[in-house]
């Protein structure tokens, strides 16, 4: 019985393989040959008629397919900067300089920042005559600098027997995709206000009053005392005066860019998770008036000095968009170096990719001075979670596939 099944499944495989080799064009070529041999053997003129119809169909299909795409050009327009997870528009301008309208034009654009399934998605233009502008809404899936590839134009019209393809080379311009952020309501430390750093007082309140730096839109939580009423009346919306605090709290983000310390692939690598957390914390903290600095020991040293205000977020986002895990220095060594170099009177956002290898106490840092995110690297290597290394301190343990927003928010509530 099992032998029969094996033979049957083998036969089925062979038949499927044969069918997969046979396309409609191959079938028509075979049919043409058969018709010619039949007509030649029998001398039946009507079979010659069928034969010439088939030959004419093949010739016209070939010629039409070649002609239709020859006169078509395409241009692509997209913004230089996009945000991960947010929609933006790519516009294609298709021009058909030919005399005849092109039918069923297939446009395939190689967009490396899209979800893999959509990366080579085909866009079908049913009819193209003259110029046509098409706006396509896409969502960038991955932070980084991406260079869109060539645009492929193809048409198999009228019968799909022959395809003519045309490649419009990319102009080499890039799209910089900033990392995505999630919303936070507070930061996961409580004792920071009692802490002194570099002669400045830690202050987790929003924008200080010491030095006027500008006017901006009102944001939820702003002190009403800072509202610039006259300007608000003129603009028809609330405007607030922004001050730079002389006493400031600085959050220093230290990224682990050690190549060996970043297992996982693509978006599911600890660094990617770390970048999302860092960007979200930075975004929240800057909005709340904190100062943010960012450092990392990659192939190229990453150093964004301390700064505040939402304009600083662009700088942080830009740096986070470009950063890669390509360094040689182990994270613990890098953290120690940073502490020695820049002092430890700040709040640190640290990422421990090695489980529990990083101990804040041994580095002379207080528990409430450190926001420590640990990664369960086993899960990133597609292995079982390492329960022996589950964190029992105030740190946040991240596993591959975790919902970061949910996890970080619950962490800050603790």
């Amino acid at each position: 019985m099992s032998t029969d099944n094996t033979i049957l499944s083998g036969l089925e495989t062979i038949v499927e393989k044969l069918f997969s080799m046979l396309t409609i064009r191959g079938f028509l070529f075979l049919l043409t040959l058969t018709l010619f041999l039949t007509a030649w053997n029998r001398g039946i003129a009507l079979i010659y008629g069928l034969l010439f119809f088939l030959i004419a169909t093949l010739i016209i299909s070939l010629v039409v397919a070649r002609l239709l795409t020859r006169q078509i050009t395409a241009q692509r327009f997209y913004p230089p900067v996009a945000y991960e997870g947010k929609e933006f528009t790519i516009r294609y301008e298709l021009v058909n300089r030919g005399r005849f309208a092109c039918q069923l034009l297939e446009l395939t654009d190689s967009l490396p920042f899209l979800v893999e399934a959509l990366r080579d998605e085909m866009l079908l233009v049913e009819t193209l005559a003259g110029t046509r502008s098409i706006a396509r809404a896409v969502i960038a899936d991955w932070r980084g600098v991406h260079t869109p590839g060539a645009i492929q134009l193809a048409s198999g019209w009228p019968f799909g027997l022959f395809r003519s393809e045309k490649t419009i080379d990319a102009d080499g311009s890039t799209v910089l995709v900033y990392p995505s952020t999630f919303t936070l309501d507070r930061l996961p430390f409580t004792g920071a206000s009692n802490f002194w750093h570099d002669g400045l007082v830690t202050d987790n309140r929003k924008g200080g009053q010491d030095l006027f730096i500008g006017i901006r839109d009102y944001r939820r939580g702003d002190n009403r005392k800072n509202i610039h009423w006259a300007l608000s009346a003129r603009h028809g919306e609330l405007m607030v005066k922004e001050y730079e605090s002389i006493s400031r709290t600085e959050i220093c983000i230290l990224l682990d860019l050690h190549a060996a310390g970043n297992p996982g692939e693509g978006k599911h690598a600890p660094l990617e998770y770390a970048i999302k957390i860092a960007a979200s914390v930075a975004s929240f903290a800057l909005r709340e008036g904190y100062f943010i600095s960012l450092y990392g020991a990659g192939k190229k040293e990453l150093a964004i000095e301390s700064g505040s205000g939402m304009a600083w977020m662009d700088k942080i986002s830009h740096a986070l968009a470009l950063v890669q895990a390509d360094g040689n220095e182990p994270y613990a060594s890098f953290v120690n170096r940073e502490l020695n170099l820049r002092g430890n009177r700040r709040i640190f956002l640290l990422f421990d990719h090695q489980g529990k290898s990083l101990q804040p106490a041994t580095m002379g840092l207080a528990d409430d001075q450190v926001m420590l995110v640990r990664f369960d690297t086993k899960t990133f290597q597609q292995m079982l979670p390492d329960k022996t290394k589950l964190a029992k301190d105030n740190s946040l343990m991240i596993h591959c596939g975790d919902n970061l927003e949910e996890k970080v928010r619950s962490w800050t509530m603790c």
Partner: protein
Amino acid sequence: MDDVLMHDSPAPANNAGHFAAGVALTHPPVYWWTWAIITLDTAAFFSLRTDFLWSVLMTLLFAVVYMLFVKFGRAYAADPEKNGMAGKISDGIAVLGMLCFLPNILMQQWVTGLLLLLLCMQAALLCKLKSTRELYFLFAASFIMLLFCVANTKSGFFIVLVMAYFLVAMGFLQAVFTQTVKQKSAIAVVSPLQKNTFHGAAILVSCAIILLATVLYLSLPRPIPLHAGSFISDGGQQYHQDSWYDEATTGAKSKDQDSNQGAGTSGDPDPDQYAGFGQKFSIEKKSQATGIIGNPIVLYLQADRELYLRGNVFDFFDGVSWSMTDNSNKKIQLKNGFHSFEPYHQKALVHQMIEAAQPMGNRIFGSPRIIDVHFPGSVFAIDHHGNLLAPRDIVAGTRYEVDSQVDYYNGRFVAQDTAAADPALFLQTPADMSERVHDLAASVTRTAPDQFRAAILLEDYLRSHYRYNLDSIFNSQGVTPVEKFLFEKPEGHCEYFASAMVMLLRTLDIPARFVTGYTSGSYNPITGYHEIRALNGHAWVEGWIAGVGWVTFEPTPAFSIPQQQEKQMESTAQELDTYAQQTSDALREAPVDVASSMKIILAEAFVFIRHAIEHGLHILWHALVVAITVFYPLLFVCGVLVAVGYVFRIRILDAIALVRIKLLHRQSPEVQVLQLWRELEKWMARQGYRRKPSETVYEYQERLDRIMPGIAEPVGILAKNFSALIYGDVKPNQQVVAGCYDAFTVVTARSTSRNA
């Protein structure tokens, strides 16, 4: 306005173009094109098997049934579980197909059986049509069915059906392709305004295909057929007679009266047939062929050359009627429908495929000498002149094949079938024949050095001194008053001429015999068959030339002896022209019915159109010749001007551009700025620096500056104002326009000076 697109689901795997892909059908037109395709092949089937009216009625009936099946198929594709009834109907039709197929196979009606099976198979598939693979199978089945019909039809009107089928097939393939592409793409940009363009383009492509196919069909010559293998017999006839079969297998001669003539054969031909195919025909009895209406096709012949198909040979003439001295024949058993008289022959053979279009006598027509026979029966007979007979009358639709040995002597066909064992048998003359016949023969052939030359002289004499009278066929066919014809009234039909020549030859002691059969009729280039009509029944002469054999002579002036060479490779257009002429003539020869009138009108219309085209082309050619001869100095000057113009084309085009620029002043400032930039692009393109499609105006400006240093500024002015107008909607004032003109002048001056 932009077409705004959003993401849809991820694209499915791109394998829909393969037969392996069982991609679900979602594009409704696919179903309707499929319906049209199988309706047309059903029409082809019924056209093959029934007459026009029935085929129309049955096609309409089946079209309605197929429409129901399409509905079932769509419902089944949408939800196979819920619409299980469609599956059951499909299985029922498949079983019905097998039930139709098996009895036909038992009756040896292979073609009918297969066609019915295919018909049911595609109907069954239509009920369960849900994926592209099934669609392709259905298309393949439909095409095979059409191919069968085409291979079996003898009607030239089938070409109309073939064209209609291909038009529909094109729509079908387009619909399948559209379905495939739409499934591949997650995003489709559809503009309702351009829907008509889509259909217009499809019609244009279809017209182009039909035009190209017609041109290929009419202009390309066709190779000589190979004739490997034999045709599938589908007459449903198995010609058999027990007594003949026993005689063939045991050698025991039957005393049955049918023994020589065959069962159900009276020895007399069908009333509609030529009288000369009977055992004996009397000149006292008026031919019944006078009742022929419309000169119908009686036989279809496929052969690579024109032939005389021999049916009967008469040796005895009593002055009133022709008959055979010896009616005996030899029965031969057919093994699997085949017999070869010389199994190991190495001779050049002429292959003939013959199909009876009307009920015939029991003569198996073929060109002598027959070497191989494919006949749908168990036994046949051969008389002592080498003519073949079937055991019973041949019915319409019977198809057989023969291979004949071809020998020629001085361009004359020589029948090598039987030797004149008893020359006296072929020297017989009527007892009451007067001496003046011999005198005439002697006087005509007095200069002839040998028997062959003598026969040729007699043939020439009859062809040149006597007139072929078509009317006599209807008035006096079967009556051969030879002497009256020779000496009193020198006009008549073929029997007069053939009888007279046989008698003249015999008076010179040259053995001769009176042969009846068919000429090969007119060749229909659409079907590839020679159409042999009732009035192609003919009588001619075979004379025994010592050392050569039975040489064919054609004394009737209206007929020409078949050519020795094979049919030349001609274009279908040429063949159609000949066919139309011959058909028109053949149909006019007989009393006309409605169908014949239609054919005559069509044939005449074709000839008229062809002559009109030929005449038109002739006038054009004549005009061209006149133009060349009369106006050659002017043409020479024009040629020189064209050559000079080509050499200096860039300068000329530049000059024309400058004229255009001057004329621009009348336009609005916007148009002027736009046109100036476009003229700049054209100007630079002529210099070899065409703007690339993906190049922005500023990139183009930079490139031009690299190529022609110093023009960055003027080009920049033009680029800036062009961009401001196009992208910023900034309307230029007169000062800007003037600046653009200046910039253009600078650019053109610099590029010209650089070239100089």
